[in-house]
């Protein structure tokens, strides 16, 4: 599962919100902060994490993700991709 795959899932998951804000549904930029852009709040984030775990059939441990990166598209996709490759792989 590559970071690009995760990005595609994110785009699909957020499609209606992206569309309603007139944003490109196919290209979520690396530096887009989903929280600061108003695309998600803390509870949406939890739902998103649950949806990711269910979609990939793999629990995701977010404790290793730096809090400031938690809602930024690039670091988030890379972290999830690394998590999905195995429980002991460092996302660095």
């Amino acid at each position, binding site marked *: 599962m590559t970071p690009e795959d995760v990005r595609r899932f994110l785009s699909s998951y957020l499609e*209606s*919100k992206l*569309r*309603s804000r007139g944003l490109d549904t196919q290209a979520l930029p690396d530096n887009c902060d989903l*929280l*600061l852009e*108003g695309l998600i*709040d*803390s*509870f949406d*984030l*939890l*739902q998103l994490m649950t949806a990711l775990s269910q979609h990939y059939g793999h629990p995701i441990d*977010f*404790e290793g993700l730096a*809090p*400031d990166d*938690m*809602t930024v598209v690039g670091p988030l996709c890379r972290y999830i991709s690394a998590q999905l490759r195995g429980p002991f792989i460092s996302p660095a």
Partner: protein
Amino acid sequence: MATSTRAASSTRPLWSGFAQSAAEYPERIALRVQGESVSYRELEELSSRIAATIQVRTAGAGSPLTAVLAQRSKTAFAGVLGSLLAGHGYVPLHPQFPVERTQIMLEQPECRSLIVDSGALDIAAKLLENVPYSLVVILPDESDVADYRSRWPRHEFVDRLNLEAEAAWRETSAGTDALAYLLFTSGSTGLPKGVMVAQRNVSAFIEYMTERYDVTEHDRFSQMFDMTFDLSAFDMFMAWEKGACLCCPTRKETIQPATFVRNEELSIWFSVPSTAMFMKQWNALKPNQYPSLRLSLFCGEPLPVASARAWQEAAPNSIVENLYGPTELTIACTLYRWSSDSSPAESELGIVPIGYPCPEMNVLVVDEHLNEVAAGAEGELLMNGPQMSLGYWKNSAKTAAAFVVPPGKNEVFYRTGDRVRKPIEKGPLIHLGRIDFQIKILGHRVELGEIEALVRDHCGLDGVVAVGWPACPTGYAAVEVFIEGQPCADQNALTNALANRLPDYMVPKRFHFLPELPKNVNGKFDRKALSALLEKGL
């Protein structure tokens, strides 16, 4: 500012607690927001100047209400205080709500003055374009409003350099029913309805709660709620009543509550239970993680036993309480103190009891004919007392339907629509759910009928049923909609149409078109059957 002495009576103006604290502790920090510490003196000065500006510029025109379009900013809090000092109630507007909804909330109460912070200028521009009458627009974060004046000549603009002087403020004599705020909640017929909460309602509550919790000037309160959520009034007026500090998280801190509690050294926490669930899932409720907390309060939705237990372990020095209250009964009207030893046995279905009424608040548990049920039986919760609000703004039909005189009584009670178990002897009230189609999403009241009405309006189809889905321990995570008929050509257009009218949490996640919706034996749409379809993975 000429300050009233701290009166023991709830007939005093709501701002008087802040004024007294500002007189006693002018250099103490009243507010932490956007990384800035604002002293009582500073906040008093800005609030008084805003109040004087409202008084001078509106001169009694329009309703005694001022709208505050601002969020998590010094201007937002000064706007609330300024409105009250001007003798007005405040109408909180959310910068992230759709413009159409916000315009209803501004125009329906006939607000003539609007306070806007720098973060809400974009939505303010859209509002100003549409509002048909003249507004006094106060922009305390701006220093030049020439552009605004040329774009919207029918409105009057005041920047921070032209706010009236503090000395121009005049204390007004507020009537006994002077409003504290007008707060809009979801309405079942497609339009939000405004709940009129009087200053005396809030004062009665604040006076009792500050004593109950022994609040002092050394306390530090969290401010987790947006101002469109009435629980935000608790944080503000509890803190300012006693000279304490109100700490407002940044947007980033809302997803890092653990960091927020530690960095701000909070002593009093207040949030919806979903936040505790969120923190538990993020592994942010470790034993003894929050030793600074001495009081942890939850309100707005059911509190799961597992969340209360985990929170108590994470905040071992804290009292944990579950509060309950619809907006119409002012912030919270019943209280339950969690005990790790005795509470699990008093809880039902894994949910903590809502407890016992606040002083002078009266409880009835009634059947469908509004007759009292026997102890131990289920029924609808009715309450009245000093916290009962004045009803709905210019909506006598809805007020008459919700504020009723039950058979054999000679007093008005508010029908909460909540299903509870009537206590046996001195036991606590147990919340069991709703008697209607209102659901809670993250503590927000959602009338499914409001969503259905908008979908019907857009699709031109009558068979529309909205259901909460998926269920979670505190209510529902979102809404899905079933529509009887052929799929409409452009479902994105439908989503966009709803997103233009509803806050994000009310916009349906999915639409399901079925040739025929299932009905029950009474010929009504069968909501349980529809939820079962979702359960099966429709």
